[in-house]
């Protein structure tokens, strides 16, 4: 069993989260946006696991499970939306779907 300091685990989670965030902000293709979102969710889950590991409590893992559930639900709905978007606009560019501007 490894003994990893909590900071390092959290640092990794932070790095992954930042990469995911950059992807969300940069990519125009909605599939890549969703993909980056998955990375961010995963990073958040990692943070929970690290914390749970630090305190020896199962709660962190329970919360990872919830994050997982949410990610699954989110990605299914998100991908359905991708299909709709492609059907309506014939493109995957998120910037095209900007009808809700003020």
């Amino acid at each position, binding site marked *: 069993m490894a003994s990893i300091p909590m900071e390092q685990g959290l640092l990794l989670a932070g790095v992954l989260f930042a990469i995911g965030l950059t992807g969300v*902000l940069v990519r125009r293709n909605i599939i890549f946006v969703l993909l980056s979102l998955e990375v961010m969710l995963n990073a958040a889950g990692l943070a929970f696991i690290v914390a749970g590991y630090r305190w020896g409590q199962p709660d962190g893992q329970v919360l990872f499970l919830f994050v997982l559930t949410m990610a699954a639900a989110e990605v299914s709905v998100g991908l359905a939306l991708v299909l709709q978007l492609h059907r309506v606009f014939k493109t995957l560019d998120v910037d095209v779907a900007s009808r809700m501007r003020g």
Partner: protein
Amino acid sequence: MLHLLFLVPILPFCGFVVLALFGRWFDRRQVAAIGVGSIGLSALFALLVGFDFVIAPPAGDHFSQSLWTWINVGGFSPHIAFYLDSLSVIMILVVTVVGFLIHVYSAEYMEDEPDGYARFFACMNLFVGSMLTLVLADNLLLLYLGWEGVGLCSYLLIGFWYTDPANGRAARKAFIVTRIGDTALLVGLLLLFTKLGTLQIQPLMQLASERWVVGSSITVAAAGLLLGGALGKSAQLPLQTWLPDAMAGPTPVSALIHAATMVTAGVYLIARMNVLFTLSPVIQTTVAAVGAGTLILAGFSALTQRDIKRVLAYSTISQIGYMFLAVGVGAWSAAMFHFMTHAFFKALLFMAAGVIILGLHHEQDMFKMGGLRKQTPLVFWTFLAGSLSLAALPLVTAGFYSKDAILAGAWASDAGGRWLWAAGLGGALLTGLYTFRMVFLTFFGQVQTPFHLKPGLRLLLPLVVLAFLSIVAGFLDLPRTLGNQPWFSDFVHTSLPETKEIAGSVERNLQIVASLASIGGILLAYYFFLREPGFVRRLMMTPLGAALHRFWFVGWGFDWAYDNLIVGTYVRLARANRADVFDLPMRGIALINQAGHIVLSRTETGRLRWYATSVAFGAIVAVGIVVFVT
């Protein structure tokens, strides 16, 4: 009999209610029957009550009758109650009898009106009812009810021919100007109740005389405020401007409301509240001075008018000035006597003028009349009787006796009595002059417009009755120098203070001077307007003459000043602020929000990545605050 008193004011109100509700379904005969009948019955009961009162005076020389409690709050409990004493007996008799005659006259006079016959009689009945309430009121609040009620009827009847906006304007002017006085009266009521704890007239006067020192400032305030009300209603300086315009109403209205009854309500009020005025010599002198000033001013204005009704209107203002002079110098009975004789002869003059106006197809300009003496002799003789009474022809007319009593009272008064007497004397001269100017222009000279009317009995009978009264009513109160039979004064003195006596020889001299003044006025009128009309015309050609004529013609410029200073300013200010300045800050808030909306809606680009960036940025800021600030 006295307990039938409540019927006197109630009957006219009943007539009003019936006519107002069902008037449209009656034909003219029925309307006239109800309208005239209710006043006739009221006059009958008034005569019965008055007769009873004179024959068998009730204990304390007064009688009161309470119908129901009107308000009862925190010690303030006016009742709907009537109070009868010699003062109110005279008032109700004059109001109902003259009112009845004028109603009879109106039944024929208004017959040619295309519509509004029932409306006319309804308003007239309402007026008589309110006037009776005013004079019979046992407390000042009920008096105020009648006071406002007569004002409303005056408004309604001046604006009777409502399709002409000028009539509406005259009507509103009458109501608003008198309302200014009424408001002063209302404040007076507030003051009296607050200081004395009741508005019932008799206890009020009792308390005032017990508690208040003569000449103290509170009496000045109270009497002054009541005087404000009286000035408005009685068209005295400086609130006199509405009365000449009020001639826009039908002639019977002018006769009843704007000559015989309502306009004398101010005199009645002062007489009724005499204790308060006696307690405040300053205000009483003011009353006399206002009366003297008004009678001169209005006399000059009457001298220059072309419209016969406006002459009579200014003459009314002038004669009420005499009554104010009388109450101001403490000649209470003289004031009431002049009120009565004035009611007779002025109603007569208006009604006779009304017949002429009707016969000339609503021509009111005296310079287009003339020579009517031959055409309508009966109207001429009655008009002449009224004019002589107005001009106070010595010995044979009622006007002489009443005016003489006033002049004697003025001479006897302490506060500047000689000056007041001189003003009254000048007024007497002016009265003779303008009255006979009117008579000569109208009835003598060339026929200018043919007369087309065969007056019926209902028009002529009231004229004859009033002509008779204008002559003989004077004998009710013969002065000491001429028979010494002061029945009227004795009767009035049961409710009003005694007048100060003067020596008999002085009184005789005064009478001679006054007689000379009025006869001189008549002779001057004869000279100027019948023998040498060119003289007046030449006089008017001179610049000074033309300017004076113009100035008097418009009533000494009061209207001009009020219209420009007060009315114009008010209207301009109100109109300028039509959009409501207080709405601006509220709209300002709305505008700021709208501007914010425009700015913030720019940030809603609809782009997912932009939103994500905002969220990230917000996270940075939020975390930054948590980390670095706290």
